[in-house]
């Protein structure tokens, strides 16, 4: 990391926005678990880190009167994974949050940070996509709500405007009560980025009821909507057709973790298995 880096801790959202605007190449920092090693490793280190963990309202998980769940941007992945409401009502998120990184890392990393990094393999993104989450953000132009399916733009790119701060992610009450199955392949059995992962979630109150999210097989985490439709229409018997559709939805590449061909094929295998597992449950 270059020495000229500046670190500021914001105590309010307004302060965070101001601190960000002060310098070019500022970055908001929540857990910092991705940001810090990347800043050390690269030539284009940020000039200022604006730490948002001192902003009280971002450090809470709240159940809103509507039944929606709001997860503040400074809430750790571990806290989300272990939260009773998340575990009971939004198990897909608990499942994905538990799969991310190591235990010390989960104590530090945040769910909102995970999605803001917009890695194609962001574990919690799979759950948030399936749960129809919304990202709450605020920027120089004021607050706005970005539906999660519009949030990811490309590898490392989100639809957040420059200076815009993601405050929280909200999961609608209507996404509660589902079941989920995560199929995840990695080089070793723990603490490894997914070579490919498929999350299947069945949400009784939503349409489509079946939700399929894919990781590490496209420039962004993504849903496989044709597969979902097939499963909604024909149930578990559509497993193979849904697998085909999900494979077709994948846009994988070759990298150090696996080839595109393998990844695409595994999308099918993992989805078929997930359908079987949930069907049997």
């Amino acid at each position, binding site marked *: 990391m270059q*020495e000229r880096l500046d670190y500021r801790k914001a105590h309010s959202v307004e302060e965070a926005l101001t601190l960000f605007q002060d310098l070019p190449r500022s970055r908001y920092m929540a857990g*910092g678990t991705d940001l*810090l090693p990347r800043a050390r490793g690269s030539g284009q280190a940020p000039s200022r880190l604006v*730490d948002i963990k001192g902003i009280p309202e971002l450090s809470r998980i709240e159940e809103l009167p509507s039944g929606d769940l709001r997860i503040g941007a400074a809430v750790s992945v571990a806290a989300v994974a272990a939260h009773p409401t998340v575990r009971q009502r939004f198990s897909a998120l608990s499942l994905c949050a538990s799969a991310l990184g190591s235990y010390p*890392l989960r104590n*530090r990393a945040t769910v909102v940070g995970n999605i803001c990094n917009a890695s194609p393999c962001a574990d919690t993104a799979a759950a948030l996509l399936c749960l129809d989450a919304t990202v709450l953000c605020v920027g120089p132009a004021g607050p706005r709500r970005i539906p999660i399916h519009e949030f990811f733009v490309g590898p490392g790119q989100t639809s957040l405007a420059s200076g815009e701060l993601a405050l929280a992610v909200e999961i609608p009450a209507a996404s509660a009560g589902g079941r989920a199955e995560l199929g995840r392949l990695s080089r070793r059995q723990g603490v490894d980025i997914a070579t490919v992962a498929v999350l299947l979630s069945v949400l009784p109150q939503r349409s489509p009821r079946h939700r399929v999210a894919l990781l590490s097989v496209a420039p962004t985490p993504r849903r496989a909507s044709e597969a979902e439709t097939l499963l909604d229409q024909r149930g578990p018997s559509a497993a193979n057709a849904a697998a085909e559709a999900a494979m077709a939805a994948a846009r994988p590449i070759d990298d150090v973790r696996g080839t595109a061909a393998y990844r695409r094929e595994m999308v099918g295998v993992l989805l078929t298995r997930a359908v079987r597992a949930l069907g049997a449950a």
Partner: protein
Amino acid sequence: MAIPIRVKVNGQVEALEVAPDESLLSMLRERLDLTGAKEGCNEGECGACVVLLDGKAVNACLVLAAEADGHEVTTIEGLGRPGALHPLQKAFLAHQAVQCGFCTPGMIMTALSLLLENPAPTEEEVRTAISGNLCRCTGYRQILDAVQAAAQEMRAGAQGRRP
């Protein structure tokens, strides 16, 4: 540009001026001479630098010193003393879970964080908790055994009896 911080380390409040890019690991090792936490990768992948931040295991290489302002840090040095070892340290000795010992402080701190949260973990839970702490010497079996033995000892201690 130095940042003034106050951080409680192993029970003692330290007032320091840290650099903005300084990691908590560097601060502990270089400013406070607490060299128990080790640097093995500097990117959160090996676990050799794990310390407790407000009672929870974190990779000290992934925390800025400035972020520790107002918080409480526990390092391996805060755990036991010669002749008065912590149950985890004792169990590591009894199970020969220390080979080269470079990963040991991080391993023990991660295990401690787990046992504070979950005093009676299953083997699977122990394996999951310390899966981010790499050891190339042992094959982990002796370490897993040691953590289970320490958990038992600590539960017994908490109930005021010896097993």
